[in-house]
């Protein structure tokens, strides 16, 4: 290499380093910082100087019943709501795709919940499910069931949280699956019609397998997003009654911003990351086996 090309080659550093440093600063630094903190005890209130404690934070987390409880809560909310979102979303997408009367009106209204801020949705839900003032209990009263303690009985509270999640995020599933349906080749379905394949078989044998790769992606996105649920829970139940609806993220939040135990919170965040990665990997492995059977 002669000196001229070497000089020209040197320019690459001028282009590379700024970008690399920015990435390092804004994305890697916080992660690395949080990781270091997770191995220390650090409190803001009352202020305590950081002290290295090794994996003690993690050991404490794994030994705490509250952690396992929040883990279970998160899993239940996520899995049930994603399953319901997928089934409902697919049904709605099919209905919209086949142009039921008034489809264009539904197309807009069905998408609305998705555009609302989760906190807003939770506030609305809190009013709707209010034990004395909410319309749901008015209905229950009218049906003769009487007032139900929607937000203060553990199982009902979970059901409400799942309902709110499903209400808000089904449109997302509908939107993506509708786009998927519309991109499927029409001739294939015409061929099936000519071959006298009944509607139900057309769905199970053709539509569903052809949308399977997209479904896997949609469910994956919703699972990851669902795991991070905090705002709805925070506003609706605050993790209560007791800690019966406390999710992982809310647990971490409470540790960090109620007890100001930063070391513990960081450790929780990393545990959460590991949990998400493990769940995600297991899901993808299962999904891959399923798609390989079809694709």
């Amino acid at each position, binding site marked *: 290499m002669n000196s001229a090309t070497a000089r020209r080659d040197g320019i690459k550093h001028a282009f590379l380093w700024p970008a690399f440093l920015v990435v390092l600063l804004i994305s890697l630094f916080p992660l690395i910082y949080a990781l270091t903190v997770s191995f220390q005890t650090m409190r803001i209130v009352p202020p305590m100087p950081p002290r290295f404690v090794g994996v003690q934070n993690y050991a404490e987390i794994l030994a705490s019943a509250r952690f396992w409880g929040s883990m279970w809560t998160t899993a239940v909310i996520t899995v049930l709501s994603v399953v319901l979102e997928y089934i409902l979303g697919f049904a709605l997408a099919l209905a919209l795709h086949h142009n039921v009367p008034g489809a264009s009106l539904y197309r807009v209204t069905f998408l609305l919940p998705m555009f609302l801020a989760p906190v807003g949705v939770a506030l609305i839900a809190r009013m709707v499910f209010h034990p004395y003032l909410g319309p749901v209990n008015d209905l229950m009263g009218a049906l003769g069931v009487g007032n139900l303690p929607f937000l203060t009985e553990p199982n009902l509270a979970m059901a409400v949280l799942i309902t709110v999640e499903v209400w808000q995020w089904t449109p997302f599933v509908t939107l993506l699956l509708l786009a998927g349906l519309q991109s499927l080749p029409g*001739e294939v379905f*015409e*061929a099936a019609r*000519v071959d*006298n*394949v009944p509607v139900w078989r057309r769905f199970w044998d053709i539509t569903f397998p052809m949308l*399977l790769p997209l479904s896997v992606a949609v469910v994956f996105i919703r699972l990851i997003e669902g795991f991070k649920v905090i705002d709805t829970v925070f506003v609706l139940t605050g993790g209560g009654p007791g800690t019966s609806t406390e999710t992982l993220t809310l647990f971490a939040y409470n540790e960090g911003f109620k007890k100001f135990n930063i070391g513990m919170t960081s450790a929780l965040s990393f545990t959460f990351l590991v949990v998400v990665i493990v769940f995600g990997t297991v899901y993808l492995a299962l999904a891959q086996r399923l798609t390989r059977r079809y694709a």
Partner: protein
Amino acid sequence: MAHVEMEQVSKSFGTATVIPPLDLSIRDGEFLVLVGPSGCGKTTTLRMLAGLETVSGGRIAIGGRDVTHARPGERDIAMVFQNYALYPHMTVRDNIGYAMRVHGTDRGTIDARVAEASRLLGLEPYLDRKPRNLSGGQRQRVAIGRALVRHPQVFLFDEPLSNLDAKLRVEMRTEIKLLQRRLGTTAVYVTHDQVEAMTMADRVVVMRAGVIEQAADPITLYERPANRFVANFIGSPAMNFLPARIERGAVHLVSQVLPLPPEEAARLRERGDVLFGIRPEHMRPSAHQASLTLEPRAIEPLGPHTLVLGDVGGHRVTAQVDPRFPVQVGQPCVVTVDMTQAHFFDPVTEARL
């Protein structure tokens, strides 16, 4: 006996009429080709026959049964689509056998029919492949296999070869034709390619703007086109058309006189305005020949013969001549015209005279 009968079948989308009332009857075992430029309604006609498009009026019967309002699946037809329309997630074997499996045909029969179809179409080595691992020609064979295992009353083909390359298209058209002969199943085939139409059909239906211009066997279509549109559409390179007069037993072009054979002259008598049509390949010597002088603009040597693209009195004329024919761009040349092959059309109605 007519096997497929379309009576006064029409189609409109809103106020736009795509197919005005149309009559067409197809004999049992006939290979009928619908041909025409894009937008002429040939595909719509086929889709109405398949039931994929509802009819706005009229009646369709297949095998003596009225199917005008029957679902596609109830018509006992099989269709081959332009884009193959294979089920992408199924193997070739499953694609071919799927419809039978859905209808509860027993395993043995399915296997036997799939084996028979794949043998007929040379698909045996690919039975366990997915469509995406097949070439275009193989995919189209699978689509044909899927149609023929059902032993339908009628095969419908919607431009099945237009996605294939030229060489494969020639091979496949022979294959489809032979297969249809062997099975003896009535077939309706849509194409925009007049060569495909001519080579495959027992009878060709030329359509324009939803109207049947002529329905006849390929040779009649070529030798006695019913009107200028058909004459222009069938044959390649296309027929030449020149405005002319017929006087004293001869065709008078601007300043040229081409004598007619006596019987033609007697039939046509004197006419003021006619359209004189002559195919490029009929510029050849014969018992009744005439000379036509043209101004060559371009010369296209094709090997077996040469095309001279020229000009006669401001009208473009293509002549097909021998490769050794002496011709140079810009220097007027004289070609021989076989006047027994001349066509005459009414300049207003464009109908054959």
